[in-house]
């Protein structure tokens, strides 16, 4: 058995190596193209964010005319920018949405992953369909409803519609994570003398925590990046960052404040990107969970 398994490998290795080098070069060139394509525009945003307004359209690749002024403009209330407020609003809306979706969704995900019941297929189909629901179909009726009950521009006016896509996403992602978990360990722990509470605390919770955390990041990013609903249902006081960036005011009136907008974009994006890169593996697993297998 061992001989037949190793024999072909040693036989083909020299022949393959020679072809492999050329293939490897092409792989590296392709990888470089992907890297440049994905990172260059983001790099350009950061470089521009640190560029003096007078040199907005400077086309040198490296940072030139470096200044922090744009970041000051972003937070300059005399220009009508309330970016600190906008950041807080985004945090509140995305935070509350995430917590609600997780707390509610974790039970549904457990049921879908672990229990046998009729209509499971239908329930999953409904939840998936809900996640693909067009936001614009909610905005119109909610616009009128919230106007009538005086909720226009309140936090809940954004949180409620945001739940329509974060909750299905949460349930969907958690279900596929839960399905992969070694639940037999719980039983083994019980046999080894753990109480049900101990088994949950010491076995299930540590196993489920990373999955839940990853799902929370995905839900948070979804709500943080939301634009359509917020652009229609928020007010000056509750405006989140995505909407604020779209309607930014610069130092010169009637002039698109490119550099300040890039600075605002950098502030919004960099923490998110760091978060994503730190939890890269988990996030990719969460993103693709359920779509394959």
């Amino acid at each position: 058995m061992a001989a037949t398994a190793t024999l072909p490998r040693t036989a083909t290795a020299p022949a393959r190596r020679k072809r492999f080098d050329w293939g490897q070069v092409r792989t590296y060139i392709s990888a470089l193209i992907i890297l440049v394509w994905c990172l260059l525009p983001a790099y350009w945003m950061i470089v521009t964010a640190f560029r003096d307004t007078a040199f907005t359209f400077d086309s040198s690749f490296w940072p030139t005319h470096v200044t922090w002024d744009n970041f000051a403009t972003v937070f300059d209330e005399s220009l009508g920018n309330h970016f600190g407020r906008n950041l807080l609003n985004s945090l509140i809306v995305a935070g509350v949405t995430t917590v609600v979706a997780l707390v509610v969704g974790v039970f549904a995900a457990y049921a879908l992953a672990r229990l046998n019941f009729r209509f499971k297929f239908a329930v999953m189909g409904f939840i998936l369909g809900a996640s693909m629901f067009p936001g614009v179909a909610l905005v119109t009726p909610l616009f009128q409803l919230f106007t009538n009950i005086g909720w226009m521009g309140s936090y809940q006016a954004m949180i409620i519609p945001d739940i329509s896509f974060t909750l299905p996403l949460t349930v969907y992602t958690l279900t596929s994570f839960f399905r992969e978990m070694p639940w037999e360990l719980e039983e083994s722990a019980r046999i080894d003398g753990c109480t049900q509470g101990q088994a949950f605390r010491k076995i299930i919770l540590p196993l489920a925590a990373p999955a839940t955390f990853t799902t929370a990041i995905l839900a948070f990013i979804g709500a943080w990046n939301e634009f359509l609903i917020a652009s229609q249902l928020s007010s000056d006081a509750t405006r989140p960052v995505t909407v604020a960036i779209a309607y930014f005011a610069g130092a010169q009136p009637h002039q698109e404040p490119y550099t300040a907008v890039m600075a605002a974009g950098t502030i919004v994006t960099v923490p998110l990107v760091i978060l994503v890169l730190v939890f890269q593996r988990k996030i990719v697993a969460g993103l693709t969970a359920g779509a394959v297998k």
Partner: protein
Amino acid sequence: MSTKLPERTQAKAKAEGHHMPGRESADRKQVTQGRWASLLLLPTLVLLAIVIIYPVVNAIIMSFQKDAGLNAATGFFEQGGAAGFDNYAHWLLQQCNGQACPPGTIGSQFWSAFGTTFFFTVVTVALETVLGFWMAIIMARSFRGRSAVRAAVLVPWAIPTAVTAKLWFFIFAFDGIANKLFGTQILWTGSEWPAKWAIVISDTWKTTPFMALLILAGLQLIPDEVYEAAKVDGATAWQRFTQITLPLVKPALMVAVLFRVLDALRMFDLPYIMTQGANNTTTLSILVVDQIREGFNSAAALSTITFIVIFLVAFIFVRFLGANAVGAATSSGKK
């Protein structure tokens, strides 16, 4: 798959008339699990009913009512009333107060917005599928720095679409870097086709990574031995791609395409921020938003039409093209 087993064996046992020891306890287990499941699912389903079904039903009811407005015949400002299918005729047949909608009004833009939406959907999804497939194949190979590439593709995905729109608006500015790099002097957001391509390129940059990661996950499920065997049989690289990779990755690919198509059909942020829908870049979602402040009920009819269009596309995908997202999600991970 294994989750369905008890039910099936039970049914089989019943059908064949065998006596099955422990059948009663299995039945009871089924019932208690069902009860537990409905209890655990209840909060989610109730919440989704409140945030989705209630507004949709509300929108449908609204769509059959007249918008408040000036009655041309009487000269009075009137409150609504039943409209029948008038609001739908307004959009689909371009009827404004019984005659053809004058050009330039929101009502006259329905079919062009419809066309624009489908143009964006077909072009962006096609581009993203081809590019995403290529990226996935590269990322599936083993080379040094692979994890860096896999991390880099997450960057466009993580950037909010509103920021993406502003970023590419700046790149495509008249004095911007795109014109300088290519030595062109195009007013990208100033006329129809440059504006459309600017939006297509931005969308492709933003969402190709998502596509690539989904396809990559599908590629990783194909065992290496299959390729080895094909090589031994003398299959060329192209044959290996069309005969092995494509058919085996098809389920994951179809789900990814379905997700992207449904997402592209509701495209709003990029054109709304980059062009405000000018120069024929108005999508159906933008048209609804433009209409909201002009009259709820017509807007409700339009949003219902948009919803039905998206629903129909999803239905066609699942029914005829075999994009089985639900099946992928409900099947057990243990295989």
